[in-house]
């Protein structure tokens, strides 16, 4: 169908739909979005049951139901439900937070309605809308192209084709075409890799032909250091758990007086006790709470898992525009070889532009700056006699763009771009209307360019040549040009950039500048904001280097100038290979691969769609101070996650290890399976407020990494502290409170059971108290409470749970769990013993941190 026929069939025209009609269609077709992207409770609830720990718990319930009493099985089932509900509520809240935050960085589209262009949220598009698209846009709906200028689209997500394919508005005469054959269609989810144009929306949301496929084929991010850390931690625990469960069961099974079923339940319960099953929930809560706090600092987190790497990054790669500079580029002046400036420079620059002239001027900042300058002095009127007939778009190889314009019968090719690139293609220069070979003037042009760059000005060159009428033009036509002059732009440094750089340096983050500009401008800007420049490398040098050389050079280099987007990717990969946690801040069309590759891909709200889509984190303001707040928040979240890990692996491990050892020499189980599971649930619940805890200031002063070696050392060192006090409790219960004598008394089974229950109750309390209260010591390297106070929610919840655990033996629930009240003397000894344990762990901390750094 021709564009006119498509318009006719969709009851629209070149002026687009009216607002009323668009609203009517929105009611019929619904929002332009997918159900898979919608937020719902179903998948979250389902995810809770995918946790392998529930498989173990269900196995426990089945074993208990088959071989012991139904009460035991029901208790375990109740615990499973409790754990599922806890996990579900927390994950639901976390996901809702992210969902709400993501709405703040929604993708927008330029739509023509009632003849006027305006920007609307892409989800409000309806069939029949006329939309404009530009390089870098993620195609928001299936559309028929009605106007195109060298449009190429990357449809890799749909077709697997890695290279961009050309798209035109030409009608096709095909029967049952395949998507690849539809060269006049743009499909939802593909990316406009080049050019610009207009299209009519044909289908939206779930009705789009390939939309749902494209969404499900979203490119996956590489595993971040944090994810790797969590994985290696999980593997370490899995090995420990399997070894312990198999070991305990095998030994208990052969011991006299130990029932096989009880031994199986006990060993499974010890396994459950060892696994920090709340880890995913704690991490998710930590991350979502952090995301909420970061949003208050204008940092929107799109991918939760990247927060901790965002905090832990030690290298930040960024362009200078908008981060070190104001990002408000303005045309200061223009220059030609003669003292009288060539009057064609400005109109030619306006014609050779991608700026979109609507209610306000948008598009490439430099083109916008030229238009703003021209509209300020009325220069845009001088473009009236010209009409544009062709455009050769910008690309990073050439670093320039060209247009072919007609004025009466004359055709002129105008080129605008990086001075080195344009000069390379110039054969002539023009002074006062007199053209002469460029060789004579080349040196003075280069010197002027160099002087301007050294003053920090960004410079573009303008050149032209007369051409003949052709059907199409190509980059080969950009030769034998006549140099006209320079456009001189300013983008002043931000006033607070110096402080921001200082702060980043204090925080252990090294800033590296990756810019398309030349090295002189970049160096000047770095000088102004006090970034010490160790070394500068330009893209051409980088091309000559091997991967190993790049790895070596990236360590020493501060400025990478005149680089291509592919080289940005190489730099990030090299830094990652050198074991850095790399943040990359980008907003350009071709920054998407680097944003994917970086550990923390950072974009800004004003970036092109494809960059925002690829980023993990979107800043609502392109400002380093916004970034600094986010980094601090990321470090706090990492700090709180690590607290849970260290606590779980040390205290938990010690307790379970003691249980395993005691089961060998005791005539009864040191704690029943249900008691272990119940204690585990209580312990998990008491940890739910860890994400709200305060983090010591010194913890956020430098980037940290997951160090599984450190976690292992911590576990091996602090785990036995807990075991000492477990064994001490065993000693007290057996030899001071007479549990040994009572449990081995001949003939009186009820007395034996009572003493076994007394032992189990005593150890339950000691174990629970030490496990929960040690959080106050482990959470800080300082003196607990005196120089580092815990968060009020954490402290409150821990105290509440300790109180609950304390009264438990006196309640019917305690009786149901097989617990009995303990003598008064026990409570005195328990308080003293736990106090000694906490002090000893604190003393151990002094020794440990003196020799083990983290």
């Amino acid at each position, binding site marked *: 169908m021709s564009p006119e026929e498509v318009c006719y069939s969709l009851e629209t025209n070149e002026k687009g739909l009216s607002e009323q009609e668009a609203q009517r269609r929105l009611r019929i077709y619904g929002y332009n979005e997918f159900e898979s992207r919608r937020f719902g409770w179903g998948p979250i609830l389902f995810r809770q049951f995918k946790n392998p720990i529930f498989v173990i718990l269900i196995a426990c319930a089945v074993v208990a139901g088959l071989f012991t009493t139904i009460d035991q099985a029901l208790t375990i089932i109740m615990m499973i439900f409790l754990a599922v509900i806890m996990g579900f509520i927390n994950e639901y809240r976390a996901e809702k937070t992210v969902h709400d935050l993501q709405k703040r960085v929604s993708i927008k589209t330029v739509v023509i309605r009632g003849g006027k262009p305006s920007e609307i949220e892409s989800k409000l598009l309806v069939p029949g809308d006329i939309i404009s698209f530009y390089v870098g846009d993620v195609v928001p709906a299936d559309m028929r192209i009605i106007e195109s200028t060298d449009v190429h689209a990357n449809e890799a997500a749909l077709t697997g084709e890695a290279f961009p394919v050309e798209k035109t508005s030409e009608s096709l005469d095909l029967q049952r075409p395949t998507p690849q054959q539809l060269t006049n269609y743009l499909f939802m989810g593909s990316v406009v890799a080049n050019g610009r144009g207009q299209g009519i929306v044909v289908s939206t949301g779930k009705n789009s032909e390939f939309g749902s496929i494209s969404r499900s084929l979203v490119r996956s991010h590489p595993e971040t250091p944090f994810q790797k850390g969590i994985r290696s931690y999980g593997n370490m625990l899995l090995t420990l758990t399997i070894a312990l469960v198999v070991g305990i069961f095998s030994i208990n099974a052969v011991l006299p007086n130990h029932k096989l079923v009880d031994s199986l339940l006990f060993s499974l319960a010890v396994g459950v006790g060892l696994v920090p099953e709340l880890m995913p929930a704690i991490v998710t809560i930590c991350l979502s709470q952090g995301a909420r706090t970061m949003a208050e600092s204008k940092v929107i987190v799109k991918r939760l898992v990247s927060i901790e790497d965002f905090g832990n990054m030690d290298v930040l790669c960024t362009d200078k525009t908008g981060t070190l500079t104001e990002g408000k580029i303005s045309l200061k002046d223009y220059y030609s070889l003669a003292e009288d400036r060539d009057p064609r420079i400005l109109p030619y620059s306006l014609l050779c532009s991608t700026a979109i002239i609507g209610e306000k001027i948008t598009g490439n900042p430099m083109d916008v700056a030229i238009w703003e300058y021209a509209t300020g002095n009325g220069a845009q009127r001088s473009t009236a006699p010209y009409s544009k007939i062709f455009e050769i778009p910008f690309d990073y190889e050439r670093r320039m763009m060209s247009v072919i314009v007609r004025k009466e019968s004359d055709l002129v090719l105008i080129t605008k771009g990086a001075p080195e690139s344009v000069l390379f293609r110039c054969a002539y220069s023009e002074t006062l209307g007199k053209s002469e070979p460029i060789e004579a003037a080349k040196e003075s042009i280069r010197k002027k360019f160099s002087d301007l760059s050294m003053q920090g000005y960004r410079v573009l060159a303008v050149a032209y040549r007369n051409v003949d009428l052709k059907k199409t033009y190509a980059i080969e036509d950009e030769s034998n040009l006549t140099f006209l002059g320079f456009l001189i732009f300013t983008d002043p440094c931000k006033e607070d950039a110096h402080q921001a750089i200082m702060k980043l340096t204090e925080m252990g983050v090294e800033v590296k500048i990756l810019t398309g500009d030349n090295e002189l401008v970049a160096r000047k800007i770095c000088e102004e904001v006090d970034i010490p420049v160790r070394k500068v490398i330009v893209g051409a040098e980088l091309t000559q280097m091997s991967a190993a050389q790049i790895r070596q050079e990236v360590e020493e280099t501060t400025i990478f100038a005149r680089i291509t987007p592919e080289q940005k990717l190489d730099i990030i990969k090299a830094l990652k290979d050198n074991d850095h946690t790399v943040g990359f801040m980008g907003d350009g069309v071709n920054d998407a691969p680097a944003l994917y590759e970086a550990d923390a891909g950072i974009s800004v709200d004003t970036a092109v769609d494809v960059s925002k889509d690829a980023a993990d984190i979107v800043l609502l303001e392109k400002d380093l101070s916004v970034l600094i707040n986010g980094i601090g928040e990321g470090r706090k979240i990492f700090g709180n996650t690590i607290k849970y890990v260290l606590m779980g692996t040390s205290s938990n491990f010690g307790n379970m290890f003691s249980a395993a050892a005691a089961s060998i020499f005791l005539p009864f189980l040191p704690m029943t399976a249900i008691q272990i599971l119940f204690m585990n649930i209580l312990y998990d619940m008491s940890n739910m407020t860890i994400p709200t805890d305060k983090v010591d200031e010194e913890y956020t002063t430098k980037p940290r990494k997951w160090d599984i070696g450190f976690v292992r050392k911590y576990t091996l*060192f602090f785990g*036995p502290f807990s075991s*000492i006090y477990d064994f001490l409790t065993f000693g007290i219960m057996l030899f001071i409170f007479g549990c*040994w004598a009572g449990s081995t008394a001949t003939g009186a089974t009820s007395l034996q059971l009572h003493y076994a229950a007394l032992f189990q109750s005593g150890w339950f309390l000691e174990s629970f108290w030490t496990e929960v209260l040690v959080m106050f010591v482990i959470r800080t390297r300082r*003196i607990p409470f005196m120089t580092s106070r815990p968060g009020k929610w954490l402290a409150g919840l821990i105290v509440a749970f300790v109180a609950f655990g304390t009264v438990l033996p006196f309640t019917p629930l305690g009786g149901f769990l097989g617990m009995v009240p303990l003598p008064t003397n026990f409570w*005195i000894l328990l308080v003293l013993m736990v106090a*000694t344990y906490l002090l000893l762990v604190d*003393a151990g901390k002094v*020794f440990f941190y*003196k020799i083990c750094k983290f």
Partner: protein
Amino acid sequence: MDYNELFNFWIISISWSIAFIILISIYLYASTKSKREEKSQTKQKPLSLVKDQGIIWFLVGLLVFYIISIKFGSDILFATGNVLVEAMLIIYVWKNRKKAD
């Protein structure tokens, strides 16, 4: 298992926990010694091992105290000893922490 056998088992278990910490402490101390020396650019004196490993001597003392008090089966002895241990630990932590800070 008779009383003596169980008591011996108990001593082995608690001693093993303390011995494990001591071994780990020595291992950690030795494995980071060269790094610390490099950082401070001075060689550590053999005596500093005794001083730095104060926690180990403390743990050994603690083990002896716990075994004696449990052997006697006296809650009074255990409680009194614990209060003393706590006082010593507070002094140790306070002194060392101030230095570390």
